[in-house]
């Protein structure tokens, strides 16, 4: 075991990852590899790609024991493809598969049964929510689970560290030759950005659609020249679970208070001027920050450059009002966001690599002025946990959290200081996903703490009348309100590794004691 740069003990070897490098700092590990390419294909004139069903796909490739299957999570909790693919694998008696999804959600709970029966032995994702997360924490998965960031998954695929044998791409619209987009059809999801890497680098690429159109489909997000097979199915996902009608702004007064402090901090930072760029989450305080910024930008006639995300109708409204010139879109959350992607020329679909990979000639998060993110827990060094609850059980994952935090000029965490009887801010936290060196400001309902590394921001905030706290005093307040929590003992066995965006390991997840 070695100690890494955030003082966590990391094993030197992890099955499935090989020898691992410990996290050395957000920008401390340069690349030292070439990109890895998939096998070259040849499809001749007259050959067809459309197969009858998933079973035929399995037989044709063929899919065998031990393979890694790739999936995107653009259908979120409405996804219907991943479960159906694994059901076919189970039916055909295939075992020892690794599921490499960009994220695993509560709808994927059937994976737990497939783990029990030996169909699935490995998991690789940027988040694992619901029953699957709990099962991994309980030690059910034979192999160590691998958690990546969105940018890190892209990097790992490009550089060959995550080798995908077969990518199954749920496609809202596909033509018979494998051109795909995410904006047409009844199960439209908008951007297919997380699937770009799977399409480019997987050994075999299978499009799964419920909306098969005659050749050619246009516009095209994922192109025919990388797609090997197309399968039409009746059900690939539930529209109600894929997108919400409209994303509504929170009315919770505490979330609004936190959002208002965050917006004031952003305004005080000096970043809120012409050319401002911004990324925020989809719910709670995060989206409300956008609402407050909108008011300020309109009042001061500020024209921003771009918003990145995670796109909701609210951000689209700001863009269509002229407050931003461009939307960079790696994921859409509601119907309005999808409509805008379809209609607006400078609403641009981007892949996870362009969005957030640290190993290329410059990803979009590098250009971000400000990102507003959440946290399950944070410690007094500003390290953040977005993967496990304070009970140490896996409930989500980094997603784009560490990527955006590393790239943005100012990273703002908005969170209740106290959620019911749980302090968000503690002296030590269960798991670190995002290192404190990339976190600048912590905004709570009680006030704001600034990372001591950012004396420049602290000086600016002092003049703004914002309630400022020393991080240790804020931690002491949280403990005073809730009482001192007992630390939760974990089992020695490591059930998951948390990979930082550059492939180094920033933390490990221990099995829960039952």
């Amino acid at each position, binding site marked *: 075991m070695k100690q890494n740069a955030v003082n966590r003990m990391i094993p030197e070897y992890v099955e499935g990852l090989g020898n691992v490098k410990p996290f050395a700092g957000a920008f401390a590990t340069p690349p030292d590899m070439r990109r890895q390419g998939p096998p070259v294909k040849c499809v001749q004139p007259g050959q067809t790609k459309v197969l009858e069903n998933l079973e035929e796909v399995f037989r044709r490739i063929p899919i065998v024991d031990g393979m890694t299957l790739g999936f995107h999570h653009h259908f979120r909790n409405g996804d219907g493809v991943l479960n159906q693919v694994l059901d076919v694998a189970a039916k055909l008696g295939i075992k020892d598969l690794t599921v490499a999804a960009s994220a695993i959600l509560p709808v994927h709970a059937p994976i737990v049964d497939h783990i029990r029966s030996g169909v699935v032995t490995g998991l690789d994702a940027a988040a694992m929510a619901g029953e699957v997360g709990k099962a991994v924490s309980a030690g059910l998965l034979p192999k160590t689970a691998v958690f990546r960031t969105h940018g890190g998954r892209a990097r790992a695929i490009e550089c060959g560290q995550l080798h995908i044998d077969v990518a199954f791409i749920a496609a809202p619209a596909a033509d018979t030759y494998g051109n795909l987009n995410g904006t047409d059809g009844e199960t439209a999801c908008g951007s297919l950005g997380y699937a770009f890497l799977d399409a480019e680098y997987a050994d075999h690429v299978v499009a799964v659609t419920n909306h098969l159109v005659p050749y050619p489909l246009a516009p095209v997000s994922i192109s025919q020249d990388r797609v090997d097979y197309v399968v039409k199915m009746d059900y690939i996902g539930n529209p109600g679970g894929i997108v919400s009608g409209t994303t509504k702004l929170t009315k919770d007064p505490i979330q609004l208070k936190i959002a208002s402090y965050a917006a004031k901090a952003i305004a005080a930072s000096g970043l809120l001027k012409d050319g401002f760029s911004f990324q925020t989450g989809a719910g709670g305080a995060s989206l409300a920050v956008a609402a407050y910024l909108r008011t300020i930008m309109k009042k001061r006639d500020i024209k921003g450059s771009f918003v990145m995300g995670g796109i909701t109708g609210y951000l689209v409204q700001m863009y269509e009002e002229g407050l931003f010139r461009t939307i960079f879109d790696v994921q859409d959350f509601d119907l309005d966001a999808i409509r805008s992607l379809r209609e607006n020329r400078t609403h641009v679909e981007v892949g996870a690599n362009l969005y957030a990979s640290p190993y290329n000639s410059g990803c979009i998060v590098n250009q971000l002025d400000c990102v507003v993110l959440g946290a399950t827990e944070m410690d007094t060094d500003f390290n953040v946990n977005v993967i496990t609850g304070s009970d140490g059980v896996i409930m989500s994952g980094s997603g784009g959290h560490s990527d955006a935090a590393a790239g943005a000029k100012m990273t703002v965490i908005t969170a209740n200081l106290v959620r*019911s009887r*749980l302090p968000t801010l503690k002296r030590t936290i269960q798991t670190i996903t995002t290192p404190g060196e990339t976190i600048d400001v912590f905004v709570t309902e009680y006030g704001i703490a600034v990372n001591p590394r950012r004396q420049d921001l602290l000086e600016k905030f002092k003049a703004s009348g914002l309630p400022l706290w020393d991080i240790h005093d804020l931690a002491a307040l949280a403990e005073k*309100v809730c009482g001192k929590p*007992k630390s939760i003992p974990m089992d020695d066995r490591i059930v998951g590794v948390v990979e930082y965006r550059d492939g180094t390991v920033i933390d490990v997840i221990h099995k829960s004691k039952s």
Partner: protein
Amino acid sequence: MSKQGQAGTLESNDIHIIVKEGVPGSGISIDLTSTVLLPYGDAIRTSITDVCNSFQVKDIEVTAMDKGALDCTIRARMQTALRRCGLIQEV
């Protein structure tokens, strides 16, 4: 028919407490479920016991379902339950 009393709700931030007078000599027994059992289970039991002690209630069965109540809420609900059970005098 032994005396019983209850107070509180199952709402977030609250604790639902049912108290039943215990057989003399049986002591304070606490059946606790909580959304924050691991970090705060011990603290909750201590508070419940404290309230019993401060009112010289020695033999009691307590069933508590906690939804992340702060300490002051736990103590207040416990006091209300004991009074409704008839084990504390009205002020």
